[in-house]
């Protein structure tokens, strides 16, 4: 471990946004993760945003092969990875070209000059070298021959091939950034020791390069001072940094333990949902049964079978996969079995933008099945609360005997943030509708009078043998029925069952203002962007009466929704699609004008665009 020996006290900043960019094989995700974890352990609030191409190893140096990782750290509450960048670390010309627009004028860019060769400049479609043509005049550019310095630092380490040497230059950059932001290298060194346990020369190499970067920054005259971001005020407790997809997986683990049921996952790999599968397959020690099926349909089909047999069953996917699962989801709805379908939304339609974020599967989730087939739809809104909403999805499915669609998106699924670790003992109880005793006149579709949930008779239970299926069934006996009035009755009772979930979910809350000129509405993964924009406006004079209401429950909507809508003069619904939730609100609530702010670029909302829009609306 090395520590800074700066002459002056580092300058204190409230928050800073750093972006690491390079080739998709340059290790930018690792570099970014190390910096954010170190900062979180130091006590900062953080939010991260990885941004990478869908190609695994795109051609070296190409514009579309640029991989980036952005982290926002602060001594104040951080709810987004930030828009504009205070520090850009560009490992090659393509990275500089595709990310320069995000750097605030006057702010810093660290560049590996060794990568600015004629060939790489051509690949990045630069006519002239930006380091020489004056196009970076408005920035503070720190030019470092990182590749050569890395080689130099490693000249005495034995048993390293050229590839390993070149690969560790990202650690040189990380070392520099650690010094600049007054961070210790210890966490990363611990990481090397654990990760490369059996390869001492790799540990030595990475540690050397990291330290070399750190010392280089310290002695470099180009960096006038270091900065520090003091710890944020956060509720006391045990924390860890968690990615949205991991939080989702863990929410299900907790729900399985709390409900006393075994967890079954039927899934097929699809970006950006696959990490949930990757996480759950690890946990055989908890008895998790994770089944990688031959396709999306077999994924949900196996989950329906496991649910019939008494497991807490889930299936995970992204937009195109949800389309494939549609028919089976209708079956689960028809046979009224508990099932959670996670849709980690990505840019659509069709294959769309697999690694980018969007919220355009909302209407598919609500209506993408044949016949009248309502299901519960809920949405997580931050990386950390994916845990809560996965748990809640399982609870609602089990307690109401219905499929639940949990919507997350690529932005919160891949993003990470501090999570105040929840013990299972703190989580709410999960009841189930399992029936064990044989009573006279028992029928498989006997319902709980209040929730209308049917009872759940599991194969293996003597005396409760019964058949269920996709055909309409008689309301009393559960046998196949084509009676017209019975079909209408059953259609209505399935809808009413989902509607009554309103009685079991929390009311909608408003933030910043309970009444006023403008209500900003969002749902799902845009919480961070919208929250921080409205918060920022509320701190300015003249914008105190902008309220913010964010929906996690989409079907059914919270009971008090209309009441909240009436309290504001204007309403704007902000979504990363062309207005799907505003359509839902229009259908449900007459007499309101729902203004829209939409973006369909595969990117999250930016702070500046939101603030501009809201200011314009309250003018």
């Amino acid at each position, binding site marked *: 471990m090395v520590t800074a020996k700066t002459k002056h006290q580092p300058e204190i900043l409230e928050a800073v946004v750093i972006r690491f960019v390079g080739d998709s094989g340059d290790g930018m995700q690792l570099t970014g993760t190390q910096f954010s974890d170190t900062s979180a352990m130091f*006590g900062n609030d953080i939010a991260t945003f990885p941004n990478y191409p869908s190609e695994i190893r795109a051609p070296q140096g190409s514009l579309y092969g640029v991989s980036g990782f952005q982290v926002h750290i602060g001594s104040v509450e951080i709810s987004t990875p930030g828009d504009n960048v205070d520090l850009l670390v560009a490992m090659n010309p393509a990275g500089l070209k595709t990310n320069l627009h995000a750097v605030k004028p006057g702010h810093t860019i660290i560049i590996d000059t060794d990568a600015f060769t004629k060939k790489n400049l051509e690949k990045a479609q630069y006519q002239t070298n930006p380091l020489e043509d004056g196009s970076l005049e408005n920035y503070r550019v720190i030019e470092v021959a990182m590749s050569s310095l890395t080689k130099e630092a490693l000249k005495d380490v034995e048993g390293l091939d050229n590839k390993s040497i070149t690969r560790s230059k990202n650690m040189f950059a990380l070392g520099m950034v650690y010094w600049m932001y007054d961070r210790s290298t210890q966490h990363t060194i611990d990481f090397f020791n654990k990760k490369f346990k059996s390869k001492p020369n790799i540990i030595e190499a990475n540690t050397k390069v990291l330290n070399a970067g750190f010392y280089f920054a310290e002695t470099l005259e180009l960096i006038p001072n270091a900065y520090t971001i003091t*710890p944020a005020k956060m509720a006391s407790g045990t924390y860890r940094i968690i990615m949205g997809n991991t939080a989702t997986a863990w929410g299900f683990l907790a729900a399985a333990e709390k409900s006393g049921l075994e967890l079954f996952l039927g899934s097929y790999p699809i970006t950006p949902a696959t990490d949930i599968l990757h996480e759950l397959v690890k946990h055989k*020690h908890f008895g998790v049964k994770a089944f990688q099926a031959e396709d999306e349909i077999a994924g949900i089909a196996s989950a329906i*079978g496991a*649910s019939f047999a008494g497991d807490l069953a889930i299936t995970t996917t992204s937009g195109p996969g949800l389309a494939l699962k549609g028919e089976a989801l209708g079956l689960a709805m028809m046979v009224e079995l508990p099932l959670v379908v996670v849709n980690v939304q990505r840019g659509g339609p069709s294959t769309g933008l697999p690694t980018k974020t969007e919220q355009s599967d909302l209407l598919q989730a609500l209506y993408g099945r044949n016949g009248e087939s309502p299901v519960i739809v809920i949405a997580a809104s931050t990386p950390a609360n994916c845990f809560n909403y996965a748990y809640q999805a399982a609870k609602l499915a089990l307690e109401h005997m219905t499929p639940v669609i949990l919507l997350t998106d690529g932005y919160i699924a891949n993003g990470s943030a501090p999570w105040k670790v929840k013990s299972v003992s703190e989580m709410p109880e999960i009841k189930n509708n399992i029936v064990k005793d044989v009573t006279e006149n028992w029928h498989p579709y006997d319902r709980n009078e209040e929730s209308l949930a049917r009872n759940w008779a599991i194969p293996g239970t003597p005396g409760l043998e019964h058949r269920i299926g996709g055909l309409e069934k008689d309301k009393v006996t559960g046998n196949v029925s084509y009676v017209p009035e019975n079909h209408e009755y059953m259609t209505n009772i399935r809808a009413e069952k989902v509607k009554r979930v309103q009685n079991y979910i929390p009311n909608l809350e408003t933030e910043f203002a309970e009444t006023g000129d403008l209500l900003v509405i969002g749902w799902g993964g845009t919480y961070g962007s919208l929250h921080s924009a409205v918060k920022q406006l509320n701190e300015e004079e003249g914008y105190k009466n902008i309220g913010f209401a964010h929906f996690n429950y989409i079907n059914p909507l919270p009971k008090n929704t209309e009441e909240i809508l009436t309290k504001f003069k204007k309403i704007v619904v902000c979504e990363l699609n062309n207005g799907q939730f505003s359509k839902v609100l229009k259908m449900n609530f007459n007499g309101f004008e729902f203004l829209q702010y939409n973006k369909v670029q595969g990117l999250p909302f930016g702070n500046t665009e939101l603030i501009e829009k809201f200011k314009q609306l309250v003018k």
Partner: protein
Amino acid sequence: METTAVKKYTFKDFASDQEVRWCPGCDDYVILRSMQKALPEMGVKKEEVVFISGIGCSSRFPYYMNTYGMHSIHGRAPGIASGVKLANPNLSVWVMTGDGDAMAIGGNHFIHVLRRNIDLNIVLFNNEIYGLTKGQFSPTSLVGQKTKSSPYGNTQPPFSPGELALGAQARFFARIGGNNPKEMSNIFVEAHKFKGTSLIEVLQNCVIFNDGCFTNITDKAVKEDKQIFLEDGKPMIFGKDRNKGLVLNGLKLEVVTIGENGITEDDILVHNAKEKDPTLHQMLVRLEYPIATGIIRSYNDVTLEEREDALTAQVKANSNFKKTDDLFFSGETYEVK
């Protein structure tokens, strides 16, 4: 699971109170009755039997069984059944399917379920036609067959279910005529005993849309001459006079007559259903004369559940994670005061 003695059932215990709605004279009635008769012989508790079906005439089956069951969606029964079995390996799980359900819309699931070797039993009602949609050609219809969707004759060559199944690594394959309830019941019992995925193809007559499709094989008058009923460990002999047999001639099976050209019973191949190498089983499956029936292949292999159970036990033994809290609070956590 507690082990209590299994009640002595009769076939009536397995009949549900629902009126059976197949066409009069359909072989499906034979399959239903054979299953209801086989179940008491299996020594399995009624509440531990599950029938899963897809869509089609065959798939109405679960409604008529007084066991657990699900009539699901077209082609997906193998997926659902896999989930049932993985969730509760104590259950005896049956997939009831047809040639369209299993090999057209459900073709992908069909080959993968066989490949994995989960301990499931699949009964394939093969009538070489779509019945419930009223008479279109299926993936097993013959070239030239005139159907509602091929009025000038079918141009799509058929699958042979057995060949497809063995190609997909099926460990158990049996074939039986739809008019042979006694042997069908026995095969169901054997399939239940077999650990792994077992597939039983029933040559099932559709009286309405493809009547007589197997008559030249299954009719009582020709059955013994046109079929060879295979039994493990017994010579491959067939014919009314029990004087025909199979020998290997180069890479082909050949029919010979015992007592002619110096052929004796010792020259006849002996059936080994348990053989790992499926070459001879494949040849038997493809044979056009005689048609091979009975249990053609029954090779014991590790099941998916056995592999999964072993891994789970190993992971559990080596893990410090007993409760989710152990995981959540492990590794890189930090305290905020």
